[in-house]
């Protein structure tokens, strides 16, 4: 659709001075243009996609949450206080009293227990965030219990770093649902799953009115919001507008208040518009290359390192990604506990050539890269292709649809894969596990982390990563992650390059959209115009 964008850009340049500039959306309704075709479900125990998380994050609440400006600070949302017992395994949450769900029902420990049990028992995609604590279908009702009306206890299988547990409890899957309403909509023992996909039973500032796949979702203000300050907007309509060029047009005409998926070129074009303002937030998603260790050339340590010196990190950021990605070279994204800020690599042809010579490949070699045929992947891949060629590394790009490249990647049939990985929850273990743990390097392994996908066999690093989760001393834990990342930067088959920046463009005068570090904390309640 690049051609489309170019055409539109050219035509807009001619048309825009004449374009009428009045916003046409109703005063108390916020309208967003966004790509929301990734939504599979709006049931918080099932939703695990970027767009779905955003909707769910505005409708449901969790026991605890983190400060969006300082992720390391946790605060109670539905819980008042919480603590871990002396055994390191029993967590107790004292709930706030007098909180009402959308239905008017009071939120109690029964609801909290039911919600978490439900997520574990249904065992949908995001359930592992809870089940990794030794919770399962069989023991959920014993381990997650309402002790009294306002007290909930959760017993984990083994003692882990308490922060690890707490951050997992801030994930979407740990949202608290109105158990009475959900149970009323049980169909054939599905625990209300079918109903909750398109309806809501939460306590957040908005309730879900409708979701029509590939069309729109509509939220309505919860006038009884317990938090006191109810949302400004009466309705929020998020329209699926697949084409970014169309999003820009709608925004410029004032038919929408926000355009959420503008590309770098479009952002450049609207930079001087008097009617539009942009805002950005650093997200946890990381853009990286995975080098399959089944390829004999790529498995040579010198080659891995050489390729890291062969990427023109700054040039790519400046010319292709500016405004949408930021240079970052460690597996923990900036903003995470224990994130490493070092950026040891830059483009250095001589160093790379020397390393290749040492590996016995002075004249380079040929290799392929599976590339999703979508901006910016293709553009970044082409830039890498050009810079690798300077050292004789002949990179052939294999462009394909996202699902297709992913299918190949998961089956470990790639040479090199260019991809994006977002953390599942806010604790460092989420990325440490996927980038630095590989318990079983056979093709049929149970745990298929990114390290596994690239066939990187690392018993020592796996042990260290596993130990970091059990470390209850925060200072020591942080040190471990820093060490892990340094070691990972040097030896891993991952070329970690950038961290995503999410950009949202809004009509001037439309303010208050909160963009947090994770996709479920893009919040609408303060938006006004």
């Amino acid at each position, binding site marked *: 659709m690049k051609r489309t964008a170019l055409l539109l850009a050219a035509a807009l340049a001619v048309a825009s001075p004449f*374009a*009428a500039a009045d916003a046409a*959306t109703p005063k108390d309704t916020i309208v967003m243009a966004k790509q929301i075709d990734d939504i*599979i479900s709006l049931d918080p125990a099932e939703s695990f996609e970027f767009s779905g998380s955003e909707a769910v994050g505005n409708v449901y609440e969790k026991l605890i949450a983190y400060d969006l400006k300082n992720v390391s600070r946790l605060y109670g949302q539905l819980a008042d206080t919480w603590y871990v017992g002396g055994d390191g395994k029993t967590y107790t949450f004292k709930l706030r009293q007098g909180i009402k769900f959308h239905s008017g029902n009071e939120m109690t420990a029964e609801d909290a227990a039911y919600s978490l049990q439900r997520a574990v028992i249904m065992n949908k995609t995001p359930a592992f965030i809870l089940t990794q604590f030794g919770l399962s279908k069989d023991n959920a009702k014993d381990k997650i219990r309402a002790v009294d009306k306002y007290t909930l206890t959760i017993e984990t299988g083994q003692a882990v770093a308490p922060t690890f547990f707490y951050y997992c409890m801030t994930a979407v899957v740990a949202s608290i649902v109105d158990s009475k309403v959900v149970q009323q909509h049980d169909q054939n023992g599905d625990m209300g799953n079918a109903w909750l996909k398109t309806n809501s039973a939460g306590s957040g500032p908005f309730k879900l009115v409708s979701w029509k796949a590939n069309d729109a979702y509509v939220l309505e203000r919860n006038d009884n919001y317990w938090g006191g300050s109810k949302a400004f907007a009466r309705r929020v309509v998020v329209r699926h507008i697949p084409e970014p060029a*169309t999003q820009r047009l709608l925004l410029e005409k004032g038919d929408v208040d926000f355009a959420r998926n503008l590309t770098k070129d479009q952002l450049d074009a609207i930079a001087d518009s008097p009617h539009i303002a942009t805002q950005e937030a650093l997200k946890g998603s990381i853009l990286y290359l995975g080098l399959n260790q089944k390829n004999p050339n790529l498995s040579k340590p010198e080659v891995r390192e050489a390729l890291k010196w062969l990427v023109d990190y700054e040039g790519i950021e400046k010319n292709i990604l500016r405004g949408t990605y930021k240079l970052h070279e460690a597996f923990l994204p900036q903003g995470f506990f224990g994130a490493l800020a070092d950026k040891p690599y830059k483009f250095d042809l001589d160093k790379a050539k020397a390393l290749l010579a040492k590996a016995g490949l002075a004249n380079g070699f040929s290799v392929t890269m599976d590339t999703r045929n979508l901006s910016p992947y293709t553009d970044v891949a082409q830039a890498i292709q050009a810079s690798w060629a300077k050292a004789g590394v002949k990179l052939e790009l294999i462009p394909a649809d996202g699902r*297709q490249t992913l*299918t190949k990647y998961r089956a470990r049939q790639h040479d090199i894969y260019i991809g994006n990985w977002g953390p599942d929850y806010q604790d460092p273990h989420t990325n440490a596990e996927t980038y630095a743990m590989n318990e079983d390097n056979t093709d049929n392994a*149970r745990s298929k982390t990114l390290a596994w996908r690239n066939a990187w066999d690392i018993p020592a690093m796996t042990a260290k990563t596993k130990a970091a989760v059990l470390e209850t001393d925060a200072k020591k834990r942080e040190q471990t992650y820093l060490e892990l990342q340094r070691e990972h930067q040097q030896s891993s088959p991952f070329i970690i390059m950038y961290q995503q920046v999410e950009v949202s463009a809004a009509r001037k005068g439309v303010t208050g959209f909160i963009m947090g570090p994770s996709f479920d904390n893009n919040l609408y309640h303060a938006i006004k115009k």
Partner: protein
Amino acid sequence: MTAARLLGTVALTFLGLLLVTFLIGRVVPIDPVLAAVGDRAPAAVYERVRIELGLDLPLYHQFWIYCTRVLGGDFGNSVMTANTVLDDIKRVFPATLELASVATIIGVALGVPMGVIAAVNRDRWQDQVIRVAGLVGYSVPVFWLGLVGLLLFYARLGWVAGPGRLDVAFDDLVAPVTGVILIDSAMAGEWEVFASAFSHVILPAAILGYFSLAYISRMTRSFMLEQLRQEYITTARVKGLSERRVVWRHALGNVMVPLITVIALSYANLLEGSVLTETVFAWPGLGQYITSSLFSADMNAVLGGTIVVGSVFIGINMLSDVLYRLVDPRAR
């Protein structure tokens, strides 16, 4: 063709359609389980869903299940929308129906007279102008026309509404009965909603209509030329009938028969979902549904959609056959 033979042909075509869609679904190098569980699902969940989707069974077994289910009207669930594919199609198809119908009305209302005028004025300037206009409509990509149309009539002149089916303010105001907003709002007497829907549909429909106009006018022209050469036309003229009557009554009347097939085919083409137009205009119709399903490897939805499109094709062809026989006694 007898009714029995017609039905036989339809059944065979349908079986072929089933086989092809099934094979496409199994041959593409995309893992359908991924679409259901996403990239981060643990191995156990992945395996469970694989079995739930029946992908562990042998291929012939899967095809058998597929056939029996489809014949029972069950296309399975869409992993993308969580609804049954049938429900999804019931929702998106009226949007496409609305767009395609308005487009066809425009195409026929303009295309037929243009074709007649071109034929009557063969090789004169009127004919040249109409032929060039048709050629442009036929050869310019519709999505490009769509974008230019949006920029001109929506962004610059403000004559029509932008992408989408309705202004946000009118969303969900009229309960869907047929799903075609123009009809539903008219029935409910909500004329403001009707106006908004009309303002939204007119541009994409005009652009698609232009596309079908090009085809319809070209075919009308050649049918008319053939008729005007016939002896009965000369006879009619000799008898002193007005030229207008000769052309618009006698000649066009006879052309109507083959034209029905042309119009039906172009209508079926539009119903198949004009993917790019729907994308440019954010029109939540069948074309967009099938493409986005394809991009997310939602095979049930792709196959269901394809079968519906195929059935519409078969149905419209059959209908035009029947109409043909009603209009033209010789075909009976």
